[in-house]
């Protein structure tokens, strides 16, 4: 896990220094416990019992255990991309699907690999494959992302971020 101090002192990764195929350092989370799952349910007031009531999950819903929340997973991916982009890049967008279930005891490895790089309006864009792999290598949240990293001696990435018109699909 990343510490507060590491995030405070993080050095900028530049667009110039990243090649297609580059794999960013993964974020490993886990093993997850029922308490982690319950904490998330309480934080967002998601009272679906399959996430914290083990007897309900197993005996009523026929599940192998209580389940990790898709909403938690979809909060972790943007957090990971944010960390990659700090301090001055921008985690523009991420899309993903929910696949394999996660249950207590699982450890997740959040990852990203560069599939394409291109410049637009003087900004450096990286397309990524992203995901969250379980400890037995099953992918539980495959997706795509686009981030923007500063170009050395290039212009600052605007904040609030305004995507180049050419890259806006709708």
């Amino acid at each position: 896990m990343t510490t507060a101090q590491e995030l405070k002192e993080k050095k900028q990764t530049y667009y110039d220094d990243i090649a297609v195929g580059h794999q960013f350092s993964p974020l490993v989370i886990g093993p997850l416990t029922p308490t982690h799952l319950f904490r998330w349910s309480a934080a967002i007031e998601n009272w679906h019992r399959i996430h914290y009531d083990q007897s309900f999950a197993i005996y009523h819903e026929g599940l192998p255990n209580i389940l990790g929340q898709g909403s938690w997973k979809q909060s972790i991916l943007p957090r990971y991309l944010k960390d990659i982009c700090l301090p001055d890049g921008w985690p523009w967008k991420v899309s993903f699907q929910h696949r394999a279930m996660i249950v207590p005891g699982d450890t997740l490895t959040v990852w990203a690999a560069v599939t394409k790089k291109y410049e637009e309006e003087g900004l450096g864009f990286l397309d990524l494959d992203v995901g969250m792999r379980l400890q037995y290598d099953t992918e539980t949240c495959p997706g795509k992302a686009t981030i923007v990293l500063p170009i050395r001696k290039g212009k600052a990435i605007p904040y609030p971020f305004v995507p180049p018109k050419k890259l806006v699909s709708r």
Partner: protein
Amino acid sequence: MSQSPSSGESALTPAVKGVIGVQAERIEASFQWGIEREGLRIFTQAIMDPDPRYWDDNFAKTTKFGGIITPPIYCTYIGRRTRPGDDDPVTRAFAENPHSDGIGGIRTGEGKGKLPLVPTHLKRILNAGNEIELRQYPKLGDRIFSQAKYADIKERVGKDGSRMLIVTTETIYTNQNDEVLCILRASQIRR
């Protein structure tokens, strides 16, 4: 014998097509006091993100954001909380159904800011994936507004010939200055 509800005629009926583009009412997702520290602390600890940009004022002032920010998609969750003064939805749900799954009876899918139901006989709902687009981090004190619409509905035919709908909703989150913070596109399979 029950007929498969998804075989035969197209599920993409004129009534279903009619909801494409329909927008819900724009509502305030945050409480009237806006984004506050304690809710932010609870949320960031639940995603195990110790980033000092969420809690260290002195450091946050030195960043390009100029102050405390929230995680990228925090604003998409704050509208799900029970508002002060509302009837307790948990007590109500279990009073109505002691075997409630914790979802039924708590969120009805109706109400302020909600989209009308898709007029289809396809009742089973599966998550088909989401896209999150970020423009700006919410800040402490920001008031968050949201507006949802049906962005698209497509029909797909499964391997077994059954018909299903892919329903994509788009929710735009803005702050008190009407600046876009985040756009959430969520797709559901209805079958």
